[in-house]
């Protein structure tokens, strides 16, 4: 698993990635009430705001940590947005993406680096 500074994670198998937000992120956001997912087939650049997570208090953008094409979205979050809170790094995944350039993963943090990053209070 790799992590971005904006608290997204990506889990990669070959050139296919699954993306979600971290447990730290869902805790900061509070109870999610709606998840606005992208279209399957959408072409994404790194840093694009791809998903919107709505809580009672605010709407939060989720930025893609990698570029590529959206191959699947987690429809389960439509009826059960709380999946994102309860299983942010598992069943609360948001979308799957065919990576354009697996080399992009090198500029992301690994688990240990991410944990250090959030402890640093950023």
């Amino acid at each position: 698993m790799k992590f971005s500074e904006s608290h997204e994670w990506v889990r990669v198998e070959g050139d296919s990635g699954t993306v979600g937000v971290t447990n730290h992120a869902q805790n900061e956001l509070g109870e999610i009430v709606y998840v606005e997912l992208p279209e399957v087939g959408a072409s994404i650049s790194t840093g694009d705001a791809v998903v919107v997570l709505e809580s009672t208090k605010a709407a939060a953008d989720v930025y893609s940590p990698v570029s590529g094409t959206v191959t699947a979205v987690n429809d389960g979050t439509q009826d059960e947005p709380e999946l994102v809170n309860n299983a942010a790094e598992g069943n609360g995944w948001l979308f799957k993406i065919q990576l354009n350039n697996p080399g992009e993963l090198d500029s992301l943090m690994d688990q240990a680096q991410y944990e250090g990053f959030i402890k640093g209070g950023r």
Partner: protein
Amino acid sequence: MKTALYEEHENLGAQIVDFCGWQMPLKYEGVIAEHMAVRNNVGIFDVSHMGRVEVEGPQAEEFLNYLSTNIISGKKDFSATYTVWADETGGSVDDVIIFRIDAERFFVVVNAGNRDKDLAHMKQHAANFDVRIRDRFQEEGILAVQGEKAEELVKGIFPGAEDLGFMCFMPVEWGGAQFYLAKAGYTGSPGFELYVPNTVIAQLWNTFLGEGKAYGIQPVGLAARDTLRLEMGFALYGHELSDSIAPNESVASWAVKLKKDKFLGKDALAKKAEASDKRKQYGVLLLDKGVAREGYSVLKDGEVIGTVTSGTQSPCLQQGIAIVLVQASLKAGDQVEIQIRQRLVKAEVVKLPFWKAEK
């Protein structure tokens, strides 16, 4: 700035945020959990960032009646009245609650963000009346205890609370201090507010939490305070009321009594009431997924007619709700659209409140 209960909030694990310069608890367990605790059981709020101002003297009643767009004169002793204060241009200065002890002794509870402004406003106009203004900002805090079971809890600590009518208050003594207990609140669930000296407020907060365990009490933060008041369609200054939104353009227009004798802002408000392009606020229920937020555009038949002043997902209704300020005359059942980023989401005008207690 911190209230006298700041350490209590830290100990309870609250997420602290800045609100108008105050370090306040946004939430403890979670917004929806706290919201439902109030609706189903009882919740306790620290609202000490709001303020109490004493107004006393031979012309206290006349003075407060002059400042207010609602009728203040002639009310009963130990009753409380909600009102919006307007300025000469018809803008809203603040919405406040005025408590009458007797014809010459009142106190006013004002919003946190407007404490200094309201005090200056009062002092400026008090120059023309035989009246003394004394704020209790440094000495006191304010607690709100709200919910289905609030009365059971409160009467156990303050006997006689069960006899208080809505918007009535009484003097109480506790912990060696004397203060006031009111049957009032901002949540729409039955409840009380207490205006408590800082010398005993932490003790009282913890007493409520202890005695309240049997009723499922939870501490409630500012985020749930907002979802609760929004379910009732209550105005929040800075959203539904401001210096550019007149009281009679807002959801609080029911409290504006234009026929009153001379009061501050009367002429400007009368002009607004007669204008052909006047604005009004309505409650809307979203018919599709989405959360409307302040500033989003509101459309009817493809034309922008106004904006959202407040919006959220209602925990009780599990639907999006919003208050909109529009230049249009609408009625319950009318359909509008809210621009939520890329989507136009259908919404229906409804009579407020969005949520009602089951009898």
